[in-house]
């Protein structure tokens, strides 16, 4: 057990608990806020694993942007405040979903924990040369060998932006149309 192990265990427990709470909570806004906690703690896990840039991007994009979009969606769809019974499937479907997810996660855990076993890696002590220069090779790789997918992703973001705009646009004269397809 090293300091990193302890830190990772604490942050990982926080992440797991908030992730589970965010999918079982009956209050929709609470679910979104538990998602914030899970994603923030996961950024801490990335930090412990020695991926500072990923942790920062996680905070910026996920905690900053994605969660705000989810909260916007909840508010714009008039999510009920307080407990609401109709956010979940019926009891039988929930039980089936629970069995499927537990079995799936268990199988994955058996496979992956079997692969990594008890191995440990050195991710660089804090303040060492290896830890200090972690961002530089990442940047070289990102803007070197990965530059074409990077540019493609910018196109994808542009396309997604335009598509979201087109989808959410109300055409003129659409306001008075009665409630959709009959």
């Amino acid at each position, binding site marked *: 057990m090293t300091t990193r192990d302890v830190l990772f265990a604490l942050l990982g427990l926080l992440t797991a608990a908030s992730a589970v709470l965010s999918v079982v909570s009956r209050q929709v806004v609470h679910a979104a806020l538990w998602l914030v906690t899970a994603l923030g703690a*996961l950024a801490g896990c990335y930090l412990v694993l020695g991926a500072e840039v990923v942790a920062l991007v996680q905070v910026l994009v996920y905690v900053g942007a994605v969660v705000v979009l989810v909260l916007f969606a909840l508010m714009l769809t008039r999510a009920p405040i307080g407990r609401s019974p109709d956010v979940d499937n019926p009891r039988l479907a929930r039980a089936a979903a629970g069995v499927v997810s537990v079995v799936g996660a268990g199988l994955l855990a058996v496979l992956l924990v079997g692969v990594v076993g008890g191995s440990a890696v050195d991710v660089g002590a804090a303040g060492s040369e290896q830890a200090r220069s972690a961002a530089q090779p990442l940047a070289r790789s990102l803007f070197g060998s990965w530059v074409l997918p990077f540019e493609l992703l910018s196109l994808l973001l542009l396309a997604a932006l335009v598509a979201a705009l087109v989808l959410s646009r109300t055409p003129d004269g659409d306001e008075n149309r009665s409630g959709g397809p009959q």
Partner: protein
Amino acid sequence: MIHLWPAVLLACVLVGAGLFGVLARRNAVLVLIGLELLLNAANLLLVTFDAAYADRLHSGQVLTLFVITVAAAEVGIALAVVLLLFRRRGDVDLRRARELGEASAEDAGIPPEPAASAAPR
């Protein structure tokens, strides 16, 4: 030094939570939350194995950044789709949105949707 199995185990827990969120929820936005958890599990595995193999090109971290970007684009589109669904139907209940499904709502024993007057303009 850091052991790898806690990170892998955490990714498995995130997969389980995300799968449950996708399967058990009927509010479309809450299904999206489950989807985000699934994507984050994949990200955590990428970062973990990037650290495990000490890849000099940091492919795992670069791919994680890409996945985060794609997730941002996906959530933007999904928000637009959910809002469109809400504008058309007045709710975001995925069990009621079955116009393109094989069976009608009555066949599946689901109460019919509220009258069209409940839909907002």
